[in-house]
């Protein structure tokens, strides 16, 4: 039996008819056309489908769409505001932290969450925070660098205010 739910995604509210067994990832990709969250493993083991639910990272492939109703869903498509990249996105671009790009949306959102709660992370904390996001291309070196750079810039911007 399908259900009527409201999903709040990237600041916009969608009235959707979904089967309760459908995952948030299915609904984002197939019903809303938001394909930034990727299906890498379907088991919550690779982090490619990471989205933020009320600011906390979640594997969209393990979250039922009906569970996400009434929460604020942020996908990678909603991160850049008014066309301006988020500092994490900017640092990923500049540092060479992107190769094939398939892990990038999840990686960027996991990094953003870390910096929201921990503005000055040590390298070990960055490694820990990103340990649920698999990247097969970069060897992680430039990703970890990018997160450090973004953290510094965000701190500088915050102290300048």
């Amino acid at each position, binding site marked *: 039996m399908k259900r009527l739910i409201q999903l709040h995604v990237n600041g916009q509210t969608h009235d959707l008819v979904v089967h309760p067994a459908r995952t948030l990832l299915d609904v984002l990709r197939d019903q809303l056309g938001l394909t930034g969250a990727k299906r*890498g493993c379907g*088991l919550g083991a690779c982090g490619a489908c990471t989205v933020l639910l009320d600011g906390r990272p979640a594997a969209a492939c393990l979250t039922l769409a009906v569970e996400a109703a009434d929460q604020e869903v942020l996908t990678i498509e909603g991160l850049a505001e008014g066309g301006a990249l988020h500092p994490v996105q900017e640092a990923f*671009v500049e540092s060479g932290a992107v*190769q094939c*790009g398939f892990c990038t*949306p999840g990686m960027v959102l996991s990094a953003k969450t870390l910096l929201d709660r921990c503005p000055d992370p040590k390298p070990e904390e960055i490694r820990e925070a990103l340990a649920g996001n*698999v990247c097969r291309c970069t*060897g992680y070196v430039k*990703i970890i660098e990018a997160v450090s750079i973004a953290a510094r810039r965000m701190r500088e911007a915050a102290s300048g205010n």
Partner: protein
Amino acid sequence: MSEFAVVGKPLPRVDAREKVTGAASYAGDIRLPGMLCGRILRSPHPHARIVSVDTSRAEKLKGVYAVLTGRDMAGLRVAFVDTPKYPADEPPFALDRVRYIGDEVAAVAAVDDATAAEALSLIRVEYEELPAVFSAADALKPGAPLVHEFDYPGKSIWEDWGARGRPQSDPVPRKDNIAARTFVEFGDLAKGFAEAYHTRADTYEVAPVAHAPLEPHAALAYWDASGKLNMHVASMGIFYKRFVLAKALGLSISQVRILKSYVGGAFGGKIDVFPYEIGAALLARKAGRPVRIELSREESLATTRMDFHATVHVKTGVRRDGTITAQDIRVTVDTGAYRGTGPVVVFLCYSYNIPVYRVPAQRYEGLAVYTNNPIKGPKRGHGAPFIRFAVDSHMDMIAQELGIDTVELMLRNARDRGEVMPTSGDVLHSCGLKDAITAAARDGDWTAKRRKSNWNVPERFKRGVGISACSMFSGSPYYPFGSAAVVKMHDDGGATVFAGTVEMGQGSETTLSQIAAEELGVPLNDIRMISGDTELTPIEFGSFLSGGAFVTGKAVKLAAADAKRQLLEMASRLLEVDVADLEARDKVVRVKGVPRHGLGYAEIIAASVKQANADPIIGKGHHKSVPAAELHPSLSTAKGRWTEAYGFAAQLAEVEVDTWTGKVRVLRLVTYHDCGFALNPQIVEGQIEGCVSMALGQTLQERVDLREGQMFNPDFIHYRMPLTLDTPEMVSGMIHSDEPQGPFGAKEVGEGAVSGVMAAVANAVYDAVGVRVTRLPITPARILGKLSRAEAASR
């Protein structure tokens, strides 16, 4: 390097903004109106005869638009290797026999995934199980079950290109499971071993590993009103895919179009033309609707391609000073149920080994053996990781026995610029191998850290260093043999580059844009790139033989030079100055020595349109991968030109071994890669770091767990790839050997730095604790086993 404005600089990638915002589109991201979901029914048996397939109930299910089986393509066989000697052997969908768990039997297209899954469950297949064989050793035994009872020689896919065709003939009965054999012999082997002061023989074994790109395999197909097949695929070379798809489907080449998608990592695993791609095309034709087949992670891991299980025997004779006098190598690989790239890998184990050390006399035999395991294919390095693991582990032991420092032993045998490779005749026009070894030893503190661990002291943690070197080619003669490119000038003096490269993470769109910008004399942000589309771009070599930058880069450079020549000629007419006295940079043509006397590109183009019959200025360039090569080298004898340039790398590992738990922690991994010239140092570093990470996975933890043909870890929980927490400190340096044949001196970089890691780590483990691990992966259990045996022996 300072004379360059754009190349040689660590500029941000041109595709990065699309990728950090989620805008980048991959094959599985595309949605078309009326698109159906395709699914594949696979064999649950490793070896069985198909008695019957009944699809009638599936066809009647509401929401099912098309069903196909082997009957829809009877007689069709497709393979990466399809030559008169090794005829194609894989029916995309089984007709009468399945040969591994996962072999394709039927496919359906339905309105959604759930309906497609239900339809599969309604297909009835009656099997009669056959005896199966699961290792190369067993498959070589007399009386072993034959995986293939016949070869089917016939028309080779290469006939149009002059490959010696064979007339259509009856199937030829097979006597054994040998899928391919390479045999090479040169020099006087007996004399070489007789002259040797010391001889050693070892055996090494490498477990199969998975490519595991984050993007699962996917294909989307639709036929347009003109009868043309359009596809988005997860590929590494769109023109190769187009060629094989057209041949397989009986279409002319221009009736197939591959459209652009980004590819979410490939590492060799996405070059073959797969049954799911042929299936998507045929289902779309039957259904009259677009069909997408997205493989699950399990299907991607267990039924596409994986790396080989390999055994390497190596015997080497050396003089007192460590100079090699003779080497005898035997490689045996399990190639799986179909040939895959078995014939190529046994050729490559010879070809990637020979450029490293000077060997005056060699015998090499490589065997690829059929089994009822999943099919094997090229994975980053394609044989180089296991041959280099074996030979450099072995050389480390020889150094130890001779009492010579391993770095010294390597330097005494390492090849130099100008040397000619036996059998292929390839010349090392550039060779930074010795520089790489020296630099890696220096940055890895070799002298200070080597042989510092006392094996007999019962400390828990012990440290050691190890080193290894490797080589890799830069493109090879293989379809389509070369690349072409077009550079189209715009009214404002910017340009669009048309090049058929596939951006799969390697950064080709960026490096090719940099090459065009540099040659043309415009800033990078004035270059637009059209890539990855067989209709919109000229033919392109592909990104699967480490030839992307080397071959296509040269074509792009020539195309940009052609456009620049036209700009200069027009400017020469306008300025009434000889072309030789002009220079073009920063979008201005200037008279040399008269900086203020010049014309902007936009002005020159406007003048060309007005005065030269509207010529908008379009440059074209083309380049063959190996200009002197006829078709391709002989895989069975390794004769024939093979590549224009070799990249080299030396890698040093520093490890800490926990003698209580057997766990090996890599503390530091130093790589020096001779890439000729780094077109974009940030991208080169990224390639090296990615190679190192993937190689460490293979060295320490990754293994496809195959038991009687069944993969037991076909998911990302049980197939464990390196995570952020496993990342050691990396030093990734470059040697600029300035390859004369390469664009701005560049050669390969994407694969080379994967193959020195295994022996570097194994040698470092030996240095730390005095035990020699001869099998990959180096697991804690193996270390502990070796340590306890060593302890028992010393008591």
